[in-house]
C-alpha cells in the first residue's frame, strides 16, 4: 500500500500546467454529465410529491364542495358535458386524488386550448364550485421540472459530456505520462509489476471523478437549500430523493473517473514506455 501511495504522489508531482488543464476540463465535463444525470432524475420526484396530484396537462380542474348533493353533481356533470367547447369530462372523488381531502373533482378537457379560459370563467360562477384551476402545458412542464424535448437534450448531453471527458482525460494522461516516461521505463527495467504501475494511473482518474462527484453533491445541497425556501422548487426534490441522486451521482462520477484512468493505462502499452528501445 505504501508503494501505491509513493507512486501516486510521484505521479501527482509530475502534473504540470498543461496536463492539469486537461484534467480540469475532463473533471468539468464529468460534472456536467453528472448534472445532466441529476436533472433527468428530478421530474420523477415532482410527480410523486407534486401538489397537483397527477393533473394531466391542458385540463381544467374543478373542485366541488363536499356539501353538494349527488343529484346536483350529476346535473352539473351533464351541463358541462353538453357544452360545445368541452371535449371530455370525468368525475373523481377528492380522496382518489389527495387522500384526506373531501368533495370531488371534475377533470375537463377543452375542445381546444383557447377554450379553457371561457370554461373557467363560466364554472367559477356556479354554486357549489370551490375552485377552478387550469393546468396549461407550460405550467405542467415547470411543475414537473423537464419537458420531453429537454429530456432528449439531456440524454444527448450525457453522451457528449462523457465522450468529451474521456477524450480530455486521455489527452491529459498522454501529456502527464510522457513526462513520467523515464520513471515508467525504470520501473519496468527493474522488474516492478504492472500491477504496481497501473493503480496510481487509475487512481488519478478516480480522483478526478471523485472531485466531480463531490462538486455535484455540493450543487445538490445548495439546490436543496434553495428548494426549502421555494414552494415551486420544493416540489421538485425531497430530501430522500436528493440523497439518492447525490449518492448515485458520486458513484457514477467515480465510475467515469475509473474509465478515464483505464484510458490512461492503455497509453502505457505503447512502445514509448518499453524499458529498452
Amino acid at each position, binding site marked *: 500500500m505504501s*508503494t501505491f501511495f509513493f507512486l501516486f504522489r510521484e505521479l501527482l508531482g509530475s502534473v504540470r500546467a498543461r496536463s492539469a488543464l486537461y484534467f480540469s476540463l475532463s473533471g468539468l465535463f464529468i460534472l456536467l454529465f453528472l448534472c445532466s444525470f441529476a436533472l433527468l432524475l428530478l421530474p420523477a420526484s415532482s410527480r410523486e410529491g407534486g401538489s397537483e396530484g397527477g393533473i394531466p396537462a391542458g385540463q381544467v380542474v374543478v373542485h366541488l364542495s363536499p356539501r353538494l348533493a349527488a343529484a346536483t353533481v350529476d346535473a352539473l356533470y351533464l351541463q358541462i358535458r353538453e357544452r360545445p367547447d368541452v371535449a371530455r369530462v370525468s368525475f373523481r372523488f377528492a380522496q382518489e386524488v389527495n387522500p384526506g381531502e373531501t368533495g370531488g373533482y371534475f377533470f375537463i378537457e377543452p375542445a381546444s386550448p383557447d377554450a379553457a379560459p371561457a370554461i373557467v370563467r363560466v364554472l367559477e360562477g356556479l354554486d357549489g364550485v370551490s375552485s377552478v384551476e387550469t393546468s396549461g402545458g407550460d405550467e405542467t412542464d415547470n411543475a414537473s421540472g423537464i419537458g420531453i424535448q429537454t429530456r432528449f437534450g439531456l440524454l444527448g448531453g450525457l453522451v457528449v459530456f462523457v465522450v468529451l471527458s474521456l477524450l480530455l482525460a486521455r489527452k491529459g494522461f498522454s501529456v502527464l505520462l510522457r513526462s513520467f516516461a523515464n*520513471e515508467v521505463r525504470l520501473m519496468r*527495467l*527493474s*522488474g516492478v509489476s504492472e500491477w504496481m504501475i497501473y493503480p496510481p494511473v487509475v487512481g488519478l482518474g478516480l480522483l478526478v471523478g471523485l472531485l466531480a462527484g463531490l462538486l455535484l453533491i455540493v450543487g445538490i445541497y445548495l439546490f436543496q437549500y434553495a428548494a426549502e425556501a421555494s414552494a415551486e422548487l420544493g416540489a421538485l426534490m425531497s430530501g430522500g430523493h436528493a440523497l439518492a441522486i447525490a449518492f448515485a451521482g458520486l458513484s457514477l462520477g467515480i465510475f467515469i473517473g475509473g474509465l478515464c484512468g483505464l484510458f490512461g493505462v492503455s497509453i502505457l502499452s505503447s512502445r514509448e514506455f518499453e*524499458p529498452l*528501445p
Partner: protein
Amino acid sequence: MSVMIQVAELGYSTEDGIKVLEDVHLRVDRGELVFLSGPPSAGKSLLLGLLAGHIPPQRGQILVYGRNVARLNREKTLKFRRQIGFLPQGFAPLPRTVMENLTFKLRALGDFKEQGEEKATFALETVGLLREQTTPAEELTSLERVKLGLAIAICDDPILLLADGPFDGLNPDDQTEVCELLERINGRGMTVLVAGRDPLPSPAQRHRVLRMADGTVNGG
C-alpha cells in the same frame, strides 16, 4: 566455479526476417567480469536484453543462474529482473536529485524510505557519488551519469550486472575510470557482463573479452 550465464544455439530474427543473432554460444562463470565488444548493430544490446528477460527469445536456450529464461512465466520474469542490475544504452537519469534517482527505484520495488535510503547510500558510496547525492541529475557530467546509472543498477544488490555501452560518449580517461569502477563492483562478488564498442579501454584487456560480429560471438 558455478555457471552464471549459459547460452546455447541462440538465434534471433527481426520481423523482416533479418538474422540479428545466429547460433550464439556463451558462458560466463559466477563472479566473472566479461567484456563483449563489437561494432555498432552487432547485436550486443539485443543479447543483453535477452539475457535480462526484457526480450523474449525465439530460438535456443538461455540459462541465467540455473533458470531457463524462455520458460519463465510473467511473475517469475519480474522476480528474475529484480535479481539483475541493468544499465541500458544511452541511460537517461530521472529529473531528480542523485539520491532520489536511486530511492525511486527502491521504493517502487517496495522498500520503505529508510531501507531505500540505506541501500542507496551504499550504492552511491560504491560508485563514488555520495558527495553528489543532493545534486540534480541534470547537472551531472557524462561520467557521473554513467556512475549514477551503475549505482541504480546495483542498488538492490543484484546477482548479475549487465551494462550496455557504459563507455559511449566518454573520453579515454573517463572510460578507464568506468572500467575500474566495474572491476570494483566485480570485486565485491558480483558477476558483470559489459557490452561496448571497439576499441574497449585498456583495463578491459585484463579480463576475458568476447568479440561479437555478424550476430555471432567468438570466444564465448
